[in-house]
C-alpha cells in the first residue's frame, strides 16, 4: 500500500511542476464553464422553467457536471496506450513488484485531487460572480446516495478507460478509438454537457442501456432529488453491475493482450 501512496505523491508533484501550464489549463476550463453558463442564461432569458428544470436545478446541473467531470473523468490511464506501444509497459510494470492497475489508480487519485481542488474553487467563484442559484439537498440520505454513486462512477470510468487503452495491444494507433469512445461518446452520453432527459424519450431510453449515464447524469439526478428511492436503488444496482462487468472484462483483456504482446527493444 505504501508504494502506491508514494506513486500518488510523485504523480501529484509531477502534475504541479509547470505552474504556468496549470494556470492556463484552469483558465481554459473557467472560460469554458463561463461560456456554458452564458449559453444557458440565454436559453433561460425570461423563462422560469425549461425541459422540466427550474433555473436553480439546471445551473446546479451545469456546475455539478463540471465538478463531476473533474472527479470522475480526470485520469492518466490514457498514457497506458502509449506505454504499450513503446514497450515501456514491460520495464515500468511487468518487471516491477506492483500491479499495473494499482499504479494507474494511484496516479489517477493525484490528478483527481488537484482537479477537484481547482474545480471547486472555480465553481465557487463563478457562482458568486454570476450570482447563480444553486440547489442544496435537504435530506442526509440523498447526500449519502449521491456520494456512493460518485464513488462507484470513479471506478467505473477507471476500468472503462483502462479497457480502451488496452486496445493498443491490437491496434497500431489508438488515438481515434480513444477520442471517439473516450471523449465524444462519453461526454455526450454521460450527460456532461446537458441533462440527458431533455433528449427525445426513445433516444434517452437507448442511452440508459449503456454504462455512460451512470458517470455524471445519474449521480446528479440523485443530488437534485429528481429520482424516486426505487429508481435510485435500481440505478445503483445497474451501476454496480456495469462496474463488475468492466472489472472482469478488463482483467480478461489484459491477460489476452499480454499473451499477444511482443514489444521491441526497451
Amino acid at each position, binding site marked *: 500500500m505504501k508504494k502506491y501512496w508514494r506513486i500518488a505523491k510523485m504523480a501529484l508533484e509531477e502534475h504541479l*511542476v509547470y505552474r504556468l501550464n496549470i494556470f*492556463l489549463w484552469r483558465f481554459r476550463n473557467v472560460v*469554458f464553464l463561463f461560456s456554458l453558463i452564458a449559453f444557458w442564461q*440565454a436559453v433561460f*432569458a425570461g423563462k422560469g422553467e425549461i425541459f422540466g428544470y427550474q433555473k436553480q436545478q439546471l445551473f446546479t446541473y451545469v456546475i455539478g457536471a463540471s465538478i463531476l467531470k473533474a472527479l470522475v473523468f480526470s485520469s492518466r490511464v490514457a498514457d497506458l496506450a502509449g506505454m504499450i506501444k513503446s514497450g515501456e509497459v514491460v520495464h515500468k510494470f511487468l518487471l516491477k513488484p506492483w500491479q499495473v492497475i494499482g499504479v494507474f489508480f494511484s496516479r489517477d487519485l493525484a490528478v483527481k485531487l488537484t482537479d477537484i481542488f481547482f474545480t471547486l474553487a472555480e465553481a465557487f467563484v463563478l457562482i458568486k460572480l454570476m450570482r447563480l442559484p444553486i440547489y442544496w439537498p435537504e435530506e442526509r440520505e440523498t447526500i449519502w446516495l449521491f456520494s456512493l454513486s460518485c464513488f462507484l462512477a470513479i471506478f467505473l470510468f477507471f476500468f472503462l478507460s483502462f479497457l480502451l487503452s488496452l486496445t493498443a495491444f491490437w491496434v497500431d494507433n489508438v488515438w*481515434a*478509438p480513444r477520442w*471517439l469512445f473516450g*471523449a*465524444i461518446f462519453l461526454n455526450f452520453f454521460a450527460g456532461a454537457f446537458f441533462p440527458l432527459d431533455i433528449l427525445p424519450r426513445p433516444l434517452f431510453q437507448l442511452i440508459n442501456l449503456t454504462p455512460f449515464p451512470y458517470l455524471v447524469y445519474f449521480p446528479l439526478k440523485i443530488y437534485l432529488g429528481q429520482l424516486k428511492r426505487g429508481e435510485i436503488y435500481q440505478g445503483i444496482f445497474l451501476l454496480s453491475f456495469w462496474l463488475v462487468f468492466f472489472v472482469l472484462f478488463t482483467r480478461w483483456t489484459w491477460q489476452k493482450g499480454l499473451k499477444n504482446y511482443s514489444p521491441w527493444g526497451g
Partner: protein
Amino acid sequence: MKRWEIEDWFHSFRVYLAWVKMVWLRHLQYRFNAFASSLGTLFWIFGTLITYRLIFNRVNTLAGWSWQQMLVLYGIYNLWWGLMNTFFNGGLKLADYVRQGGLDSVLLWPGKALFYASMKFEPVSVVHSLVGVIIFLFSLKTAAVEFRPGNFFLAAVLLLNSFLLAYFVSILFGVSSFWWVENRNFTEFFWLWETLAKYPSEFFADHKLLYWAVYSILPVVFIAVVPAEVILGKTRPMAILGAFLVTIFFGFLTQKVWSLGLKRYTGVSR
C-alpha cells in the same frame, strides 16, 4: 515583391503540395482511425445540432438569434473549423519542433522557414469542412437568405481573414515554446476558440469582461459571427473593420514574436 521572392513562394508551395500528398498516403495506412475520427466528427456536429434544435423547440430566439440564423452561424463555424484544422493551425506544431530540436533542420531548409514550420494538412478534418458546407447550404435554404453577391463576397473575404487570424494566433501559441518549455496548455488554450466561436457575441452581453475579451484578446467573434451577420444582412461596419484590424495586429505581432524567439532559440538538434 521581387521576382526571386515570387519564385521562392512558388517553390515553397510546390514543396507543400508534395508534402500534402505524402501525408494523405500516410493517413490511408490507418483506415480504422480515419473511419473512427470521421464518425466522431459527425457525431459531434450533429449532436450539437440536435441539442440546438431541442432548445429551439422551447424558445423562439437565443439572444436575439432565431433557429435559422443560428444554423447559418453554425454552418459557417463548422466550415471554418474544418478548413482551419486541415490547413491553418500548423503553428501549434512549432512547440514540438522547439521542444524536440526539430526546428534546427527546418531552419536550414532552403525557403521560408516559418512557412515550412507551420505548414499543415490534417486529412481527418476534411470531413468536418464538408459537413460545414452542407449545413451552410442547407441553412441558406432554411433561413430563406436573399442572395446578394456583395454580401456573399464580403463574407468570403471575412472568412479568409479569419483563417489568417487563426494561422497567426496558432503561430503565437506555438512560438511561446521559445520561452516556456512545457506549453502544452498554451496550445490547449487555442482550442478555446472551438468553444467560443460558435456563439453570437450577444450571449456574453451581460458579462462585460468576456464580452470585451471576445472582441480583443480572444477575438473569436470575428471568426464566424461577423461573416454570418453579413450573410444575414445584419452587417456592422465597425465589426468588419475590427476583424481586419485585429488580423493585421496579430500578423504584425506574430512576425515580431517569431523574430524575437529565433534570437533566443538555442537548438538541441536531432
